[in-house]
């Protein structure tokens, strides 16, 4: 069992963050996009944990908890809206189709 240093954790968080961002950009499915955003949020949360560990302070963990609750709330609302989209008769979850608001 080796302890990871905060710097390594930050690096991991950055990698996770980039992965999530790529996911948002690359995926067309709304659900997957939401999931990618969750990954990014979690990357941020991880970074807070790492930073908190560096300063031996509780704020990092406070922020982690808050991010978790935010992610939950966002997922809830997001899923609700997607459900409503589906109920309104949208055939797919493809984010690239059926856009009316543009220009």
């Amino acid at each position, binding site marked *: 069992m080796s302890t990871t240093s905060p710097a390594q954790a930050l690096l991991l968080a950055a990698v996770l963050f980039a992965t999530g*961002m790529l996911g*948002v*950009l690359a995926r*067309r499915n709304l659900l997957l*996009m939401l999931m990618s955003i969750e990954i990014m949020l979690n990357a941020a949360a991880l970074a807070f944990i790492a930073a908190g560990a560096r300063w031996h302070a509780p704020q990092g963990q406070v922020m982690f908890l808050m991010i978790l609750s935010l992610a939950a709330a966002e997922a809830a609302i997001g899923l609700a809206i997607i459900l409503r989209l589906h109920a309104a008769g949208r055939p797919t979850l493809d*984010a*690239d189709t059926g*856009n*009316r*608001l*543009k*220009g």
Partner: protein
Amino acid sequence: MDALFLKLIVAFPLLAAAILLLSAGRMPARATCVIGTGSVGLSALMAARVATHATSPASLHVPLWSWMRVEGFSTRIAFTLDPLSLVMMLVVTFVGFLILLYACGYMRDDPDIARFFGYMTLFVAAMLVLVFSSDLLSLYIGWEGVGICSYLLIGFWHIDSANVAAARKAFIVTRIGDAAMLCGLLLLATRAGTLEIAPLLAAPPASATAAFLLLGGAVAKSAQAPLQTWLPDAMAGPTPVSALIHAATMVTAGVYLIARLHPLFAAVPAAMATVALIGLVTLLLAAGSALVQTDIKRILAYSTMSQIGYMFLALGAGAWQAAIFHLVTHAVFKALLFMAAGAVILRVHHRQDIYQMGGLARAMPGVFAAFLAGAAALAGLPLLTAGFYSKEMILQGAWHANPLLWAGALLGALATAVYIFRCIFIVFFGPRHTDPTGRTGATMALPLLCLGILALVGGWIDMPDAIAPVHLLSRLLSPLFGAPTAEGPSWLLWTGSLVPLAGVGLAWLLWRPRIRAFTPPEDAVARLARTGWGFDTLYDTLVVRPFVALGRLNQTDICDRLSDATAATARAGGRMLGRMQSGQVRRYAGWIAAGTIAALCLGAWP
């Protein structure tokens, strides 16, 4: 008292003009005639009164009011009566009165007669302002005023667009000279701080530029080369207009200006030489053109140019008195010629082509006599005619200045006699081509009579010593111009007398009724001469047409394209940003990511 008269001399025609123009044609024709002619007649009477009183050399100064008074420059409107303006005043009022009287008959049936007389009286007023002004700037009021009246009167019959074009041309060409003159005034005002003539002449700033600029104004106004092209076209106006404005008065304003400012010119020999040269060139070119014209008024127009060329020649030669003398006699006989020609034109159904007339001497003997008197004076037939004496004086002056000038002037004199008698022989002799109708009324005949007599005897006021030692005019003008130069050898007089006679003989040989078969030589030179030596074409191709064409091309203003381009750029930018707004959420996320990366790079940059 004289001061008041002087004001009234100007005020009467001005008042008449105001009344006539404001009446807007609601006045009966007869009243119009009475007001128009009467006002100038009153002026003439008063002018006569002033003239008989003020023969003393002392000049009369009548300040009116201050016009502009600013830092470093002030000018006032003031009249001066000195011998020169006295002579001019008499010419303008008397000849003007006679021409207006004639116009009463000539324009009798025109519905717009009020406008006509309004403009004519306005012209007389402006001309008098020009003549009386003691300040160059108020002179300029008259100078431009006569120009605009000329414009209005040439285009008087404005339904014909040719008349309108001729009027516009006349004004614009003279305006070119006026602009030069204005520049001259600016220069003088800057140098001397004043434009008042007396102090200006007391210490003339020897400025060649100023002299040449002023000369530009004189050249254009007096239809001298190279700005002469407007005068033949100006004949589009009614004949009394041609007589008054384009023969007797306005066109001689240039001569007056140079004579008035003669110390300024005399101080610049180059300017004097140029004046003489312009005069010589114009008198020869115009005489040549007059030789081949077929329109009677155009013959007279070219003749006017040519005669004013004589005056310029005299001015350039320093023979100031001769120039003014010729101005006076020319005003008389040219007005006479025009009015006689007008009488002819009126009788032959407004035809002006001399080849369509012919044999009119029998049909209208009175008019013929008048025309003949005028022609004789113009040709300068010896002893009997006014033109002889004035031209003789010019020839003397030219001889003293430069024999070459004299030779040219003599050649001109020959041509003059030829072209005017060509006109007489074709119009009044030989077979008749048109039957004249009507008769020349009294209002038209009386001025013809008066001027006819004057054209014959008017020259007697100043004769060469060889004939009779009468020097009324020279003596009158001598306080201004100094004593006239001594006379040359007597063979000069002989030559000057014989050349016109030779000219008449030559005309008789060529165009006497019996050999009407003689057709004018139709070669390129004649064609060129008929069109005024191609000046019109030249200016048209070089200046007018390119200028107008480029203007047309740029009608929508190229600068406007700049603003259009800016607007188009903005719109394109808007469209681009609209495309950024594709509606696809992934694309939006892409922009955010791109922005983030750009921000990160920005942080890494320095």
